[in-house]
């Protein structure tokens, strides 16, 4: 259940989502057709309402994610096995596979950028261990009685090393680094179970309570907070509860525009299936290609287009959670209630410590008629932030508006592919753009804001004008649609790029925060400076890359996202060094008025600051909920508290 989120990311701009503006007519027709099909489905579902259990088995596994995740995904890196960056024999970077827009393309500038930015060389490789060494995995310590009872239920499970290791980690740097190094694992789950539906989960949780087994929910596995790490001190049998097979849309209610969905569904499947009916959720965290609905709920995920659709807490109408005490759910689907503190808020952000989210009713919207990317170039970061602030003030933020600093702008530049219709135009355009418009802009200062507008065509165009007008008052110049789209592509490739960096002695990570508007600039500057300084003090031989973007805007502040990478040659323990620097960076964030997390969550990585963040009384309140709901700590991942 612990999953979601965004740091490393990937999603559908590359694949299905990047609809061209002129395709709207065919889309409309398709929608109509899909709506009819959806109607049939609805009827079908109603007919079967009494036999959920059988349906549960019959319809299983229509999603992208197989039980054996390692069949399609890397066991020691990000994403699909067939997609990765590499430097070819000519030293040029290319992206393999067929899944993404960049797939199969050569990126001629990447090598230069990579070598110059990090002081790295394509001749200095730090290759990963090729395959999982089964002897590095501690043997499964099974609770035989539990296994016996589980067998009787017919719910599939496994205690193979590969399955267990895959669910022993998220995507923190130290986790991936350890996998690549082939380090011995201290503690991994002893077995993995794949429930197919809510009632399977109820059975599993009952058995876990009966036999005192530790359960760790697992959704998409994209956690970046050490949330999936097994507590080494846990002596009970640890069972990883993989929700990936609970991936169906159970019904769509067009009258109320809500859909009832199993919580194991991953973002791309949810979106694809809803699109077939002419709908979308609009919830697009950067990790949506792999992260799951349950994970989003469990971490308080945030989507790129939250300005139109809202964050996860705005989207959920009803949540069903299986806990050791039983099932928690509300009795109606009223859009807002005054019934004491909202119990959903105990679940949202609970990070797998209370139970398993099994089903969620969430808002859906018709697929927008028209979508348009855009970008604005500002002379410097200050001007860009001032513009975003004004946009937020006038409450006219597009579906997405992000401000990338100069480092990210240059990074984006380095990802220019060699051949591509959309990109050739862009490169040409950019050249012209440089000459005609960038005059007076310092290429080492300028920053770019990327925009995504959605809605009906006329409104989008109107909206676009409004935003560009505001930008102009801050010295911003419109810099084209392609430039904007490229910005969003960067978001998903960066996760794959980290693996490339790790092949060449470069470690990288990202972290995020939310901060009041008036402190955005100070926070960004101080955190970058702190990172640079800490790296120097800790013996990092090369100048680190520190980069940030303002990635979400709110009425009262913004979400800021940092990237941080350095060449670790010459360091005895690069992961330790990295962790100390990240720790210092987080302290700096807190000292500058930033939050502990905007959407990544706390996990085990940031537990130490919880008291400081929400007061010890606050921690006590959460603890008392935990104590009531799960007195035996069945959900024993030890996140958060």
């Amino acid at each position, binding site marked *: 259940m612990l999953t979601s989120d965004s740091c490393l990311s990937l999603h559908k701009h590359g694949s299905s989502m990047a609809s061209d503006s002129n395709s709207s007519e065919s889309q409309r027709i398709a929608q109509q057709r899909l709506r009819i099909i959806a109607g049939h489905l609805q009827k079908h579902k109603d007919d079967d309402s009494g036999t959920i259990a059988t349906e549960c088995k019959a319809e299983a596994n229509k999603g992208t994610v197989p039980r054996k995740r390692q069949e399609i995904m890397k066991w020691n890196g990000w994403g699909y096995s067939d997609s990765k960056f590499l430097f070819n024999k000519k030293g040029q970077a290319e992206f393999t596979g067929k899944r993404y827009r960049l797939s199969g393309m050569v990126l001629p500038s990447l090598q230069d950028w990579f070598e110059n930015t990090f002081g790295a060389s394509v001749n200095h490789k730090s290759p990963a261990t090729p395959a999982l060494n089964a002897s590095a995995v501690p043997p499964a310590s099974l609770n035989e009685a539990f296994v016996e009872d589980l067998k009787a239920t017919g719910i599939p499970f496994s205690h193979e090393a590969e399955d267990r290791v895959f669910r022993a980690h998220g995507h923190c740097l130290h986790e991936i680094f350890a996998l690549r190094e082939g380090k011995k694992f201290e503690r991994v789950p002893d077995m993995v179970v794949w429930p197919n539906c809510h009632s399977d989960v109820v059975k599993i949780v009952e058995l876990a309570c009966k036999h005192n087994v530790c359960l760790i929910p697992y959704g998409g596995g994209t956690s970046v907070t050490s949330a999936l790490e097994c507590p080494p001190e846990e002596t009970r049998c640890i069972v990883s509860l993989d929700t990936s097979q609970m991936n169906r849309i159970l019904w769509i209610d067009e009258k109320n525009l809500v859909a009832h969905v199993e919580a194991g569904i991953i973002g791309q499947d949810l979106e694809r299936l809803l699109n077939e009916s002419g709908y979308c959720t609009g919830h697009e965290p950067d990790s949506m290609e792999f992260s799951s609905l349950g994970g989003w709920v469990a971490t308080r995920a945030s989507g790129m287009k939250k300005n139109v659709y809202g964050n996860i807490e705005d989207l959920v109408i009803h949540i069903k959670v299986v806990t050791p005490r039983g099932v928690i759910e509300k009795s109606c689907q009223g859009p807002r209630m005054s019934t004491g503190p909202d119990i959903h808020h105990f679940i949202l952000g609970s990070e797998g410590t209370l139970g398993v989210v099994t089903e969620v009713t969430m808002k859906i919207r018709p697929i927008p008629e028209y979508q348009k990317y855009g970008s604005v170039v500002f002379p410097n970061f200050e001007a860009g932030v001032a513009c975003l602030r004004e946009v937020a003030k006038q409450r006219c933020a597009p579906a997405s508006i992000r401000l990338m600093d100069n480092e990210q702008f240059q990074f984006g530049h380095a990802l220019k592919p060699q051949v591509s219709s959309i990109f050739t135009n862009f490169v040409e355009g950019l050249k012209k753009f440089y000459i005609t418009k960038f005059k007076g802009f310092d290429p080492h200062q300028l920053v770019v804001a990327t925009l995504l507008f959605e809605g009906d065509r006329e409104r989008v165009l109107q909206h676009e004008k409004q935003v560009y007008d505001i930008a102009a008052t801050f010295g911003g110049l419109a810099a084209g649609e392609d430039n904007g789209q490229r910005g969003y592509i960067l978001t998903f490739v960066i996760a794959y790029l980290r693996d490339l960096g790790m092949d060449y002695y470069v470690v990288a990570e990202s972290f995020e925060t939310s901060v009041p508007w*008036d*402190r955005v600039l*100070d*926070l960004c*500057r*101080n955190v970058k*400076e*702190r990172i640079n300084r800490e790296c120097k003090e800790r013996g990092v031989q090369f100048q680190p890359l520190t980069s940030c973007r303002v990635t979400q805007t709110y009425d009262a502040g913004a979400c800021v996202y940092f990237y941080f990478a350095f060449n670790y040659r010459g360091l005895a323990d690069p992961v330790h060094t990295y962790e100390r620097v990240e720790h210092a960076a987080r302290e700096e964030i*807190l*000292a*500058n*008025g930033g939050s502990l997390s905007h959407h990544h969550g706390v996990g085990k990585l940031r537990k130490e600051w919880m008291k*400081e963040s929400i007061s010890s009384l606050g921690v006590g309140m959460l603890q008392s909920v935990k104590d009531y709901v799960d007195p035996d700590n069945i959900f024993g991942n030890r996140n958060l508290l």
Partner: protein
Amino acid sequence: SVSSSFPFSLLSISSRKQRKNTIRDGFEDILEERRNSSDLKYALRCYAPVLYKGVTPCKANMLKNIVLQSDQLRYVINQVSQESGEAPDIIQEEASVILEEMAHRLQISTVRFFAFALSKAFKTLFQHVCVNEEGIQRLQQAIQEHPVVLLPSHRSYMDFLLMSYILYTYDLALPVIAAGMDFMGMKFVGEMLRMSGAFFIRRSFGGDKLYWAVFSEYVKTMLRNGFAPIEFFLEGTRSRTCKSLTPKLGLLNIVIEPFFKGEVFDVNLVPISISYERILEESLYARELLGVPKPKESTSGLLKARRILSEDYGSIHVYFGQPVSVRSLAQGKVNRSTYNLFPRHIPRKPMEETQSFVNDTAYRIVRLQEDNMVLKPWVLMASLLLQNLEGMELSVLTEQTVWLRGLALSYAAFLDWPDHAPTAKVVSSSLALHRGLACVSGGRVSLVVGEPLGPVTPEEALFNRAVSVLSCASYRNQVLHVFLRPAMLAVAMLHLSDEVYNCFSFLWDMFSNDFILCPGDTVQDFEEACYLLVKTGAVQMPQQDIVMTDIGQPTLSFFNGLLEPFLQGYQVVCRYLCEEASEGLTEKQYIPAVRSFHSVLCVFTGNLRCYEVLSSDMQKNALAALLRMDAVRKVKVADQVTLIVNKMAVNSIDDILGKNRMISHINQTQISPSLSLVAVAEDLCRDGLTPSYIR
């Protein structure tokens, strides 16, 4: 024997590594080049300093606009407007006027003029102007990295001109300098200073919210923008005594706050020690301390001062200390996130945690200034002469100066003793430079006392004597910071109390207005004192005891003599308050009253030799100590502040000090300080007491 009880173990002290870093940079004489090349060329040369990496280029005028339009100032303007009922426009206009009066107009042409004129003046007045170039290099580095605050010691009007002159010489960014409004009295000079980077602050603006807002925002804006290094004097005013003054916190609070609020990554504080071999204002200060009013700064006064141009003022040493990172200092002491819950543009009283951090920082910086003050041989000689007001044989003075030099060096004093020169030569040339203060006749050295024409009243004689003692004391005071802690310990040991630490702690508390004693450092200072005395073999510390050694006698009695004037002075004040002070004594009456009380004591009984208590500085410090110890209270009656004396408390303080009086009483009859202690010891033994420090 009685063992002394300490609240901590002292056994670790001798093994502890010495606190002070005694490795210091060497000096370069910047006048040397001036004597060999054209001053005009120098004044007109290319000046291209490195700037702060985050600098927003900005003219002095734009700066004013930024300040006037800042959220901070706008907030206060609205607040003042609401309180006073005046329209915000009018308040805004007021703010603009304040800023106009305050702001600098730094211009390179004026700086060049000063570069030329000061070159001429310095060459006439001084033999050398020495600067540690490594410090300059460190400063240059710091200026690029972070906003820098220059914190020089303040002994002379020369200080800030000298600072700008040096920075210009080394092609460093010229500072903007916080100067007192009094300069503005000198019309032309005031404007010149303004154009060389000075900005002017009223001496007091207690409750004036608007003034404070304009002032603090002006300084912060320059700091945040990295416009220029900001320079001000932590001591607030020129020290008339050459002792470092208790630091003032206002400006330091202002320059540190942007760090706490996250507006800058760090702020670097650079302590700078400016040591004058002879201070231009030497006898002026003594007179001022004795109550002759300070001459008002005026251009004509400055011109009259031209006659000082004909004298030799020796050398100046300017030591640029290691930049101190506020960020590092604050690590673990101030939780910056407490600033998160309040809008940053609304002025707020600093939190307790912050206040104590700033206070602590201020003291540390002043101590760093002290540590790097260059001491001349004369400073040692003056310390000896003041313990022998009847005069002393030149040969004895020479011998004891050599002895004192050894002691000072082992206490890490930054002594500028000429290499390879015979001691007699060093002593005689020091005497020559300071011939206004001391003279040799018939092989005896004594203080020079100004002889007015015509008949002299006893009061006048006393006054003249006091001028020469106070002038001389201003040199002795320069070495006090080196000896202070062991000296207090020595006094505590010579005290009849068994509780050496308690006595030390009492003296520490008592003197914390007179000397730079960092708040809360009593134990640490005590340990340092023990360490130093042990190190030089003056005491031994078997187990929990402190025992004077045979060779320790001269050291301890010298130290006792060193602090004697302070002990006596405080006692005179106590006696005055107990015996003479009337009901309803006002704060204003206090100083002249003590002064005349003392004169009476002196002139008619002739048994008190303490001239230094005539100094208003000591009187104020003594009063401050008594106020702090709750022996005296201030009560505001109508417009006047009245002092309410708790005679019991004052009496008991006098009593504690009085135990030392026995020693000093004996001391007066001694010729050599090394003998006095023996006499004390004999005295004590006769009384049947065996103090623990004598075995």
